[in-house]
Each structure stands twice: as C-alpha cells, then as structure tokens.
C-alpha cells in the first residue's frame, strides 16, 4: 500500500495532538509507527482507520482519499479492520459469535456462509477449540488473536493494530506477534503501532517515528531504530533498547 499524508492536524479541545504531520511511504506491506506516549501515534492510527476525522489535512491510501463525512467513513471502515489494545471483543457473545457478527450484520452473509468462512482461520491459528467460549474464559493472548481474526474474516484491504500486545505478558505477546508475522507472510497489509522494537525490526517494511505531533524520522527499520541521525529519535531508542 502507498500511504500519502499531507499536513495532518488533529485537536482535542485546546490540545493540538497532530501538528501538520506529513508522511509518504513506498509501496509497503507493513508500516510500523513508533514513538513516545502522547506523541500522536494512536491519534494518527485512528484517523487512518477512519475512526476520527482530522481538523485539517489529507490522507490517501493507494491514491484514494479518505472521506470526511461519517456515512462515507463508515463504508471505508467496513473495508478495513482495526484491533485495539484491549476490550475488543464483545463480552456477552462467544468468540465465534464475535467473529460472525460483522459478517452477518454488516456484510450480509447468511449464518451458514459466515460459519463456513470462519472455520478455516480458526483452525489455522489454533483457536477452533476456544470458539465456543466467552471472552471472560479466554486468556489475553487468545482474546487478542480472536480480535485480529474478527478483523480479518471480513477480508479487509488492510489492518490497523493499536498496541495489540501492550496489555499482555511476554508469552502472550509472543503468541500474538507470531500471528501478525504469519499474516504478513500470507500477504496481509497492516499499519501497526507498537513498542515491540524487536518485532518492528524484523517485520516492518518501513518505520515512522511519531513525536510531538509530527513524523520525526521515517525509513527502513534498521535505519530508524539503530542508526537514526535525528537526536531525539536516537536518544529514544538508546533509552529503551539499553
């Protein structure tokens, strides 16, 4: 996917979170956003995912501009998938019902069609035995993987993942990252916000460092994480990778 962002501004009340952010990527499969808390990465991701409308600026994926009115944005959201840090799944439904819901209520599949579609992904990622359970009965890693599946089964153009492992312990983090890595092998495009630098280094095609509401550095992962010549970026990685 080609991402083209110009002069993106986002404000909440008097607080300017994105301050004329600009980014032009190559044709990447995996774009990873990193940076300090409060720097604007999640805000940016929400705009890219069609959840929030920026105050100013433009965003285009593969030449297609993101709309600004809610009905058109809703249509856009139906073509992509988003996974948050936690509380993705609907707790009053089983894992399977969570997966079926968007297929049946948004994409108009019949129940048999929907069940047929989710069968293979559930089995491939080892979650078929847990499908009848409610989220309260699942581990954090299982919940996040089901949430990713729910985003996937609608056959989205791309996935947006906002710190999907930040609420998980190391073992479950590995579980989820492994799944994301596998998805990349299978050709899924995604924009990922994460603090997992090891994964970013391995899986990202390009990394963008978002801080103070702008992109401070952007390029191949090794260049940004290990050898950035932007002082702010270098000191960030020096501190967290030591």
């Amino acid at each position: 996917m080609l991402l083209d962002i110009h002069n993106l501004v986002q404000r909440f009340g008097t607080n300017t979170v994105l301050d004329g952010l600009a980014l032009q990527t190559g044709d990447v499969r995996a774009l990873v956003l990193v940076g300090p808390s409060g720097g604007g990465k999640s805000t940016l991701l929400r705009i890219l995912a069609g959840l929030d409308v920026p105050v100013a600026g433009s965003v285009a994926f593969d030449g297609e501009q993101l709309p600004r009115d809610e009905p058109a944005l809703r249509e856009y959201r139906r073509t992509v998938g988003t996974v948050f840090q936690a509380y993705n799944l609907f707790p009053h439904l089983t894992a399977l019902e969570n997966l079926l819901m968007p297929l049946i209520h948004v994409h108009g599949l019949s129940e048999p069609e929907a069940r047929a579609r989710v069968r293979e992904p559930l089995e491939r990622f080892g979650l078929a035995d847990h499908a009848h359970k409610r989220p309260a009965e699942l581990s954090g890693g299982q919940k996040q993987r089901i949430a990713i599946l729910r985003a996937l089964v609608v056959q989205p153009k791309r996935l947006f993942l906002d710190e999907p492992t930040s609420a998980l312990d190391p073992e479950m983090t590995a579980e989820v990252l492994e799944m994301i890595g596998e998805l990349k092998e299978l050709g899924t495009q995604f924009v990922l916000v994460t603090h997992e630098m090891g994964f970013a280094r391995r899986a990202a095609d390009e990394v963008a460092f978002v801080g103070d509401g702008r992109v401070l550095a952007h390029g191949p992962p090794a260049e940004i994480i290990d050898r950035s010549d932007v002082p702010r970026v270098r000191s960030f990685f020096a501190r967290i990778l030591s």
Partner: protein
Amino acid sequence: MPRWLAHTIVVILFAALIALAFSRVDYAWNWAGVWEYRQKFLQGFGVTVALSLASLVASTLIGIVAAVLLGSKNVMLEAVGRVYVELIRGTPLLVQLLLGFYVVASAVGLENRYVVGVLVLALFSGAYMAEIFRGGLAAIPQTQRDSARAIGLTPWQSLRLVILPQAVRLVLPAVAGQFVSLIKDSSLLSVIAVSEFTLAAQEVNSFTYSTLESYLPLAAGYLLLTLPLSALSRLLERRYRYEM
C-alpha cells in the same frame, strides 16, 4: 449445610426472638377483630400491586428519557435532565406527593389521586433510574463503542447489538433494588388518601385499636411482594454474570 436450610434456621431464630419479646409485653392480642377486616386488607393489597406495576413501567421509561437527556451534548437538554434529577433526589417523596397533589395537580385540574400518585411515584423513582442507567452506560469501556464502529456497525446496530445487551446486565441488580424500593415507597401514597395497602392497615387500626395486629400483616404483605422480586433478581444476575 445447604443455603436454604441456613436461611430457614436464621428466620426461625429471628421469629423466636420476636415472639419472646412480645411474650414479655403484656399485650392483649386481638386477631379476631382484625380478621373481620380481611377484605379491606386484600383490596388495599391489590391497589398497591396495581400502583406499583404502573409506576414501575412509567419510572423505567422516565429513567431512560432522563438518562438520554443527561448524556446529551446539547447544553439545554442536559440541564433539563440534571435539574430534574437533583431536585427529585434532593427532596423527600412526602413533600413531592403533597406538593404534587395539593398544588400542581389542583392547578392543572387533575383530580384523580390515583393517577397523581402513580405520576409522582414514577417521577420520583425515574430520577434514581436515570442515574442507574447513566452509571451502567458509563461502565462500558469506550473501546466497545470503538470496536462496534470499527466493524462498521451503524449507531443503531451498535446500540442494539453491543451497548444495550451489556448495559442491561450491568444495571440489573440496581434496577431490581429500585423496584423493591418503589413497592415500599408506594405506602406513602396513603397521605393523599389513596386506598392502598398501608392506608387499609391504618384504617383497620383506627377501628380496632389493635396496632400490632394491623401492621404485622402489612409487613408480611410487602415481604410477599419484595422477596420474590429479590430472588428473581439474584437468579437473573447469576445467569447473566456467567454469560458476561
């Protein structure tokens, strides 16, 4: 020990304690006198049940409307909701009943004390319901709404499929408690001469001068209404909590 057995033993012990206390008091029991008025008691009980049901339904509707007002981004609408809730929750039901019937209803020309009684009771309980519903909605994490939007659900679908099912489970205990309070609060309607259960007991007492024999059945009658409600609520909570 099974729970029902423990409950029964405690109730029997409690009843024995009360009986002991009464046996110490030199009280001339007059159950026969009160038994003559059993028809009055039954009618009063029926009126209480009807009033409570009507107020229950009305207060739930009022509570929903008020909760929507309280959550509104429109400053004026939110103000209506907030003033309503604070006024009602900050003043005694007795005052609301007296003002409601003798002042407001008279001014509007509404003479039926039963209708006024149900309205005042519904408005009273509705204010508490509104806060219960607000609390329930606020307890649902924002990510749930985000996830619903991210999937592409319309606002109506979000409400129907995601928000309301969770909100109902969250508020169930508090709403059941509010229903129980409502049934007991309906006793206050006696001050505007609504012929419900409590007024019946008061009248029987004034005829027979047998206070305890008039009011003990009253207590038993209310228990008959509130205990099943509590039990039902606990049953539903247990069922829904597993589902959550």
